[in-house]
C-alpha cells in the first residue's frame, strides 16, 4: 500500500508540479492532508493553483494509485520521497531538492562513496581517453560513478564502470517509460541490473530541454565530488559544476588543449578557480585520502619499424601521412605495422586516419 504522504508526492510528480510549488503546498498542509485539501477545495489550494486547480482536482479523482502500484511492482520500480529515511542529506541542501525519486536497481548505492563524471556529449578522442582512464581508476578504488546516461562522456563513464565490475548510478532527465537517448537503452538495462537508475520524473514523463539541467543538480547532490573530463564553453556539464559549488563539494577538471574548442569549458573553470585541476586519477584519490592501487606497467616488445612508429606517436596523435613522412617506412609496410600494433593494443586508430598510443 502506498502511504498517504507518498501519494501526495507521487500525484504531484504525475502532475509535473515544480519543486518550489510542491514544497510550498506541502508546508501549508503537511503531506498527509494535501490530497484531501485538493478534493475538498480548500481556499488556500484553490487560490494557490488558480486556473490549474480544476485540472488537478479532476485528475486526482480519476487517479488510480492501485494501477500505479501494480505498474511499479511489475517493472521493479521503487521510489523514496524527501520524507524517507534513505533520502540523502546532501540532496536536501539543494535549492530545489527533488520531492520524490523513482529508481530501478540497487538503491543502497546512493549511500556509497560517489563521484560524478560529466562532460561533453561529443567528446574528442582525448576526452574519451581521459574519461575512460579516470573512471577505471576511480572504480578500482571503490568509487561509485554517477553520471547522466547521456551520450559521449556520460556513456563512457557508465560503460567503463560496468566493464570494471564497479558500481554506477545513472540519473535520468526522463521517466522510465520514455528513455532518452534511445541509443542508450541497452546500457540503461545493464545499469538497472548492476547499478542504479534514478529519476525524479514520473514514469510517463518525456524528456524536455529543461529536464536535463535539472537532473544535473541530482548528480551533484548524490556525489562527493564532480569530475569534468572535457567540456566546451557552453557545455551542460558546467551546470553540474555550479550545483556542486553551491553544495560546497569538490569540483575537479582535467585540463585540455588550449586550442581545442572542446576543452574551453573545462579549462576555463580551472582558470577561474572553480575547479581543482587534476591530471591523474591519483590527484582525486589523494583528495579523499585513498592510497592508489599500484598498476604494473606492461613491457612492450617492438621490432625496428614498430619502434620508429612508437617513437613518432609519443609526441601525440599523428595522421598516416605524418607517420609515413617522419618514419620513412614504405606505405605497405607501414599499413602492416599499424594493423599489428593495433591488434596488440599498442596503438589506436582514430577517425580520420589518425593514430595514437
Amino acid at each position, binding site marked *: 500500500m502506498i502511504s498517504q504522504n507518498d501519494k501526495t508526492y507521487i500525484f504531484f510528480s504525475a502532475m509535473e508540479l515544480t519543486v518550489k510549488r510542491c514544497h510550498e503546498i506541502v508546508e501549508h498542509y503537511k503531506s498527509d492532508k494535501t490530497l484531501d485539501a485538493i478534493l475538498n477545495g480548500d481556499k488556500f489550494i484553490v487560490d494557490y493553483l488558480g486556473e490549474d486547480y480544476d485540472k488537478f482536482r479532476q485528475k486526482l479523482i480519476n487517479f488510480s494509485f492501485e494501477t500505479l502500484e501494480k505498474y511499479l511492482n511489475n517493472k521493479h520500480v521503487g521510489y523514496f520521497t524527501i520524507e524517507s529515511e534513505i533520502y540523502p542529506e546532501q540532496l536536501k541542501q539543494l535549492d530545489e531538492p527533488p520531492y520524490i525519486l523513482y529508481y530501478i536497481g540497487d538503491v543502497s548505492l546512493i549511500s556509497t562513496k560517489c563521484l560524478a563524471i560529466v562532460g561533453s556529449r*561529443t567528446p574528442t578522442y582525448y576526452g574519451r581517453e581521459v574519461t575512460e582512464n579516470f573512471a577505471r581508476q576511480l572504480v578500482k578504488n571503490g568509487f561509485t560513478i554517477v553520471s547522466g546516461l547521456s551520450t559521449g562522456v556520460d556513456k563512457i563513464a557508465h560503460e567503463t564502470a560496468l566493464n570494471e565490475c564497479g558500481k554506477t548510478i545513472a540519473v535520468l532527465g526522463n521517466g522510465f517509460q520514455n528513455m532518452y*537517448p534511445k541509443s542508450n537503452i541497452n546500457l540503461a538495462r545493464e545499469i538497472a541490473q548492476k547499478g542504479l537508475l534514478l529519476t525524479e520524473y514520473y514514469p510517463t514523463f518525456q524528456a524536455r530541454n529543461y529536464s536535463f539541467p535539472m537532473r544535473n543538480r541530482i548528480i551533484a547532490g548524490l556525489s562527493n565530488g564532480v569530475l569534468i573530463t572535457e567540456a566546451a564553453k557552453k557545455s551542460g556539464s558546467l551546470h553540474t559544476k555550479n550545483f556542486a559549488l553551491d553544495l560546497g563539494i569538490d569540483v575537479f577538471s582535467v585540463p585540455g588543449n588550449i586550442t581545442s574548442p*572542446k576543452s574551453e569549458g573545462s579549462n576555463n573553470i580551472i582558470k577561474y578557480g572553480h575547479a581543482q585541476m587534476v591530471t591523474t586519477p591519483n590527484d582525486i584519490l589523494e583528495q579523499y585520502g585513498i592510497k592508489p592501487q599500484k598498476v604494473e606497467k606492461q613491457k612492450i616488445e617492438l621490432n625496428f619499424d614498430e619502434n620508429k612508429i612508437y617513437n613518432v606517436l609519443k609526441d601525440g596523435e599523428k595522421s598516416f601521412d605524418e607517420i609515413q613522412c617522419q618514419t620513412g617506412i614504405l606505405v605497405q609496410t607501414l599499413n602492416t605495422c599499424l*594493423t599489428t600494433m593495433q*591488434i596488440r*593494443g599498442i596503438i589506436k586508430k582514430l*577517425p580520420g586516419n589518425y593514430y595514437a598510443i
Partner: protein
Amino acid sequence: MLAKVLSFGLNGIDGYKVTVEVDISAGLPKFDIVGLGDTAIKEAKERVRSAIRNSGLKYPVSSITCNLAPADIKKEGTFYDLSIAVAILSASGIIDYKRIGETIFLGELSLNGEVKKVTGLLPILIAAKEKGYKHFIVPKENYFEASFISDIDVKVVKSLDELVDSYKCPDIILEKVMTSNYEALKQSKPTSYLDMKNVKGQFSAKRALEIAAAGGHNILMIGPPGSGKTMLAKCFPGILPDMTFEEALEVTKIHSVAGELNLSDGIILSRPFRTPHHTATSISLVGGGSQVKPGEISLAHNGVLFLDELPEYSRHFIETLRQPLEDGQITIARAKQTVTYPASFILIASMNPCPCGNFGSKKEECRCTPAQIHRYLSKLSGPIMDRIDLHIEVDNVTYDDLHTNEECESSIDIKKRVDKARKIQLERFKGTKVYSNAKMDVTQTKKYCSLSKQCQDILRMAFDNLHLTARAHDRILKVARTIADLDGQAEILPQHIAEAIQYRSLDRKYWE
C-alpha cells in the same frame, strides 16, 4: 512493283535483321510506313520524299506502302531512312533491284539528300557480321566507327545521288572503309588523365587505389570536404590497365547506342570515367526510358563509375546498383521489351564522415549529433557495403604537403605494378568468367585465399580486438589476395592480411 532492301534494328546492343519492303501500286498518291515504327520512323516519309526529289530523282506519284519486317517488333531510330529510300528507288526502277542483293543500308537522310550519321552503327555491324552479312553501305560520317571490324565490306556514302550514281554507271565506285589498327591509333593518341604525381601526400589513399586497380575492387573514400577525394578518383583511370581491343569494342558498342561516341576516333580508346551527379534520375543512371537507352552505369562498363557524395544519391538508386555490382550487367525490363546492357565497372564512391563533414577532422569541429551521424551512415545499406571491398579515410592535406617539392610516384609507375598483378590474375582465372580478384565467388575465394596458421591467427585477433564485423571476412581475404599479387607472392602472407585489415574503416566500431 515490289522491292526488298535489308537493314538492321537494335535491341539494346544486339542487332536483328529488318527487311524493308516497298510496294508501289496504282492509286491515289500516298505513302504509308507500317511495321511498328516510332515517331522518328513515321517522320521518315517526309525526309525520304524530299531527299529523293532534291537529289534530282523522280519520286513516284502513286500509292506507296512500306513495311518493316518483322512487323511485330517495335522499331526505333532514323537509320532506316536510307534503306526506305533505296527500296522506293528500286521499286520505281531507278536503281537496278538485282544489284542490291544482300547489301545492308544504314543512314539518316536530310531533306537535301545528304546521308547523315547514325547512332548504334558498331553493334549493328558486329551483329550483322555474326549473322553472315558482308556488304554494308553506311554514312560517311560513321567511317571510323565502321573501320574496326575486319573481314566485311563496308562502303561509305555522302549523299543519295552519289549512291544512285554508283548503281547507274560503273565508273563511280563508292569509297571503301579501310580497317584501322586499334593499337596504332592508341599509340598516336595518348590519353591524358590526371597524374597521381600531382596528388601530394595521401599515401594511404594512393596505396588503396593501387590495390583497387590491381584487383578490380570497389572502393569508398571517406573524408572531410576538400581533402582531395575527387582528385584522387580522377587519377584512378590512369593507373588502370589498358583496355584490350575486345574490351574497347564492347565499350564502344554501348557508347554508340547511347550516341556518345566521338566519331573522329570511331572507337573508345580510354577506359570510361563516368561521374553522374546525385540529382540525376535513376532511369538516367541505370538505363531505361521509352527507348531503352543505356544509363550511366552501362556507359561506365569496363571503366570507372565515380559517385561523389554517395549518401546524397537517392536510396532507390543506390539499391539498384546491387545487381550490376554482382553480375556485371543490368537487365531493364519494360512492358514492350527487355534489354540487358553490360555494366561491369569499378565503383569509386566518396562521402563525408557525417552531415557537416568534419567528424574526425582536426581542423574544424564536428557539430553533428550522434543520431545525425547514424542517420547519415545508415543511408548505405548493408548489402551495398557488402559489395565495397575497400574503405579508406582521407584526411585533410596540410599546407606543407601542398608545397613540398618532393616528387611523388607517377601514374605510369603505379600502373606497371597494377599490370603485373592483373597478369597474375588472368593466369589464375584462365578458363573462367572471372578476371579479377574482386569477382571471385565463394568457392574461388576458398581455393585461392587459403590462409596459413599464422595468417589465421592475425585475422582472428583482428576480429576480437578491432571489433570487425563478420561481413568483413571475405572482403579482407580478397583484398589480401590482391596485395599478395602486387607483391608477387603465391601465398597470402601475414603482412598482406595485416594490410588488408587496414582498409575496413566502416566496420570499425568507433564509427558511432
